Structures are given as C-alpha cells and as structure tokens.
C-alpha cells in the first residue's frame, strides 16, 4: 500500500436522533481500490456522504492528503479532487445529457481537455452520445446511471467514491463499467472507494475490503482474504448449498456479531 490519501478516524454521523455511523475508522492508500460491503442500512451510503461533506459528522476526523476536511462544504471537498458518484443516479433531470456532462467538469477550466474527456465518456457509453440533447430525466434508469458515472469521470478525480455504480445496469454493462474502473485505476491511478451489492465484482476489483454492519466496521482485510472468508461467501457471494431451488430457507447466523 502506497501513501495514505484518505484516513477516517472514529467517525460518527447522525440523522437527527438516529446514529447511522458509529465510530468508523479506515484508511485508503494512494492508488488503492477499497470496497465497503454491508447489508441494507448498514451505513455505507452515509459513510460516503459524510466523506464528501453532504452530511456533517458529529465526531471524528476525515483526513484527505493529510488535511482535515470534515465539516467542510461539499463543494470545497470536490475542489480537492474527491468525487462522489451517488446512489440512485441524481442527475439534473431538466438538463440535457450534454449539459449534465458539462457540469461534471464545473470546477475545471481546460476546455480542450474537457472536450476530450467528453469524447471519452461518449466512447464508453455510445448511447449517451446518441442522446446528447435528451433531457436527462427522461433517460431510462440504466442510461441515467451511465450518465452519473460519466459525469463523475468528467471531473478527473483523484479519488472516486462510487455508491453502487452497477445499480440497474445490464450484465454486459456491469462488466464494461468494472472494466473502465479497472483501467482508470491502473492507467490513471485513480483511487477508489467502492460500495457495491455485487460483492463478487467489487472484491474482484478491490485491493482491500471492509464489511459494515449497523454503522460499524466488523471485518476488514485484503480482498483476497475476504473472498475466502466463509461468512463473506455465504452472505455476499451467495455461495450456499442452494443449487436446487427452495431448500435452506433459514438464515445462517453471522459469526462476527
């Protein structure tokens, strides 16, 4: 692991009286892909939102390149090169595909490079090129997801926070997207923090993995090691004795609880 770019220390976040992050600490190294796994409501999205400043943490520190960024306004954090591709698309529904992409590059001034990156996004997702002038709100669910990812790429981030990028994408596109992420990571050395339900592809791409449960990190390790863990296999990879339909309808108890 290279130098640490992002370090989270004992983070706590609340929604009113509800504690969603209960003291999370983790480190992300330069050029690493870190994945965060966890069941529904574990607090994965909240963790990413807190890092990108959309939510204010109650306690704890977030260090990016050695500087504390917790409590900053989200746009200041984006300016430092952290880009968050949110869960659930969040496009600008009344703006065209093209305008959405331009906004991805809002903080940049290098016109020529921006156009090149736009072309790159269109190469990745040809359907977006076809629909350049369509209002983003009328795109199909998957097309919006492509747009959200493409828009994130337009920022040329140092570190990307990806919240369920494969949501609603066809199997073919899931492969493609992970191919793209892999290339970005290896060629451009973009650091990534990845939240995914599709644990298999996530662990396949990632160097390190964390498992969250009810706001806490309950397990961490290298992706390979996690891949081997029985619990992970059972709960996130679907390796159960379930080759025939309908048997085993009880739930296995998670051993880390």
């Amino acid at each position: 692991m290279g130098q640490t770019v992002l370090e989270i220390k004992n983070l706590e976040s609340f929604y009113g009286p509800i504690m969603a992050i209960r003291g999370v600490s983790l480190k992300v190294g330069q050029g690493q892909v870190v994945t965060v796994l966890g069941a529904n409501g574990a607090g994965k999205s909240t963790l990413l939102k807190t890092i990108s400043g959309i939510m204010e943490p109650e306690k704890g520190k977030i260090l990016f390149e050695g500087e504390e960024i917790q409590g900053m306004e989200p746009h200041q954090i984006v300016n430092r090169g952290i880009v968050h591709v949110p869960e659930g698309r969040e496009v600008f529904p009344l703006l065209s595909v093209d305008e959405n992409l331009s906004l991805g590059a809002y903080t940049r001034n290098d016109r020529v490079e921006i156009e090149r990156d736009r072309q790159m996004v269109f190469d990745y997702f040809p359907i977006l090129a076809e629909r350049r002038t369509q209002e983003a709100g009328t795109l199909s669910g998957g097309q919006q997801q492509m747009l959200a990812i493409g828009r994130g790429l337009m920022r040329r981030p140092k570190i990307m926070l990806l919240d369920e990028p494969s949501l609603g994408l066809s199997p073919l596109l899931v492969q493609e997207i992970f191919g793209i992420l892999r290339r970005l990571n290896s060629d451009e050395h973009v650091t990534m923090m990845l939240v995914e339900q599709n644990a298999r592809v996530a662990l396949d791409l990632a160097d390190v993995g964390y498992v969250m449960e009810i706001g806490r990190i309950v397990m961490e390790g290298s992706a390979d090691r996690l891949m081997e863990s029985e619990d992970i296999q059972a709960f996130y990879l679907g390796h159960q004795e379930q080759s025939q339909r309908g048997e085993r309808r009880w739930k296995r108890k998670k051993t880390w609880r």
Partner: protein
Amino acid sequence: MDVLQLLVSGLANGCVYGLIALGFVLIYKATEAVNFAQGDLMMLGAFVTLGLTNAEYVGLPFWVAAPLSIALMALIGYLLDLLILRHLSGQSQTSVVILTIAMGFVLRFVAGAIWGHEPQTLHSPLALGDFQVAGVVLGMADMAVIVVTFLLTLFLYQFFQRTRLGLAMQAASQNQMAAYYMGIPVKRVQGMIWGLSGAVAAVAGILFASKGAIDPNAGLLGIKAFAAAVIGGFGSLPGALAGGLIVGVIEPFASRYLAAGYSQVAPYALLLFVLVFRPHGLFSQVRTKKV
C-alpha cells in the same frame, strides 16, 4: 389610432410587469424558491433611487444615483440571502414563500419609516418628454422601459443558456445535492442570484418610478407580475416577458371596451382562463416524471 395607442402603452406597462416577473423567475430558476417580496424589492429600489436623487434627500445627479442604487439593491438582495434565506437552505418551498411574504412586511415598514407613506415622485430625466410617432404618444419612460426590458430579458436568457454559471444555477435548482457533488458552491451561487434579482428589482423600480409616483405599497404590483409570470410559465424568462406583455396589453383594452366594474377583473380572469388550458403556463416548465 386608438388601438395602436392602447397597444403601445399596454406594451410599456407590460414591460414593468415583465421586469418584476423576471426577478421572480431568476430566483425560481436558480433556487426554486418563490420570492413574494420581489414587488417590495422593486419598491425599495425605487425609493433608494429617489432617496439618492431627490433634492430633499441626498440630491445626487440621476445618472450617478441610478447605478449606485442598482449596486446597493444588489447588495441588499445578496444580504437578504446571506442573513435570512440561507438558514432555510433545503427547506420546503412553502416555508420560503411565507418567509418572503414576511420579508415584504418588513420592507414595507422600513420604506414607510424612512420615506413616509405619502406618494412621492422621483426626479428622473426619464419622466420628462414624450415622443409622438404617427399620432401615437409614448413617454420617455415608456420607451426606456420597453428597451431595457427587452435587453435585460435577452441578456438574462443568454446568461442562463450560455454561461457556466447560468448552467450551474439551473443545476442547483433541480438537484441541490447533485449540484454539490459537481463542486458547485450552491449557497454562493444562490446568493449571487439574489443579488442579481435585487439589481433587476432596482432597474424595475427606477423605471416604474419614472412613470409615476411611488409609495411603500407600490410593491403590491407584484401580484399582477405574479399573474404574468404564471401565464408565461413560472421559471421561463421569455415566458415572464410574454406574460407581462399579455397582462399589460389586455388591461387598456379591457378598460377601453368593457363596462365599468368588469374591466379590472380582466388580468385575473385571463390568468384563470390560460391555466384551464395550459395548467403550467404558456412556456411550461413542468414535466411529467418518468418512472
């Protein structure tokens, strides 16, 4: 001849409504908030100019006072956002509506306390002199209103359509969270739009005051400008102008040709009529959600 005269002065008036409506639309386009105090901002802009110009107050030359008050009103708009509206960032539209209505109360009170409640006249060079073309009379102020309104609409339209900041403003109104994700300083952008609409209010106020006397209740005109903005399709700049012109033109014709007691209902009856057929105005900004 009558008809032409009615049309022309209707246009001039419509432009005043259009100018106020532009102010609403600006803020709506960038924040989706509806500013019920826009009419009162216009009134304040008029009074600030009057205070700077008229001899019994500061007595600056008009051409110095006008830009100065535009700048001042921009500052006031910005401060209103900074000190008050920013606290409501992310809260529902209805609360903002109520807040701005209350702001209108306060602005009216402040103007009354400073400049009194009696109507006053701005010493404006625009107030003097008429044009007469082919039997149609048009005041300087009317001319100025028409020209300025069209230019301003065009400028603002281009601003939203072509500039990065304009785009960012639209983005911020459609999805605040995503706007932050893009690195747009949403609050600062919204402050700027309040400043801008303060400036527009000042322009409207100066032109309005050049057409006649003003008092602290002059802002009630905002209600008709609302009708204009809604007819045009709330959120559309050309719509605001179009709506303003429609309301402006319908009025003189109604008072000319309808019986007393019925003519003054024309703008509101028209509004209801338009909404029956186009529930979201002529240049509708509302879309059906794709599910």
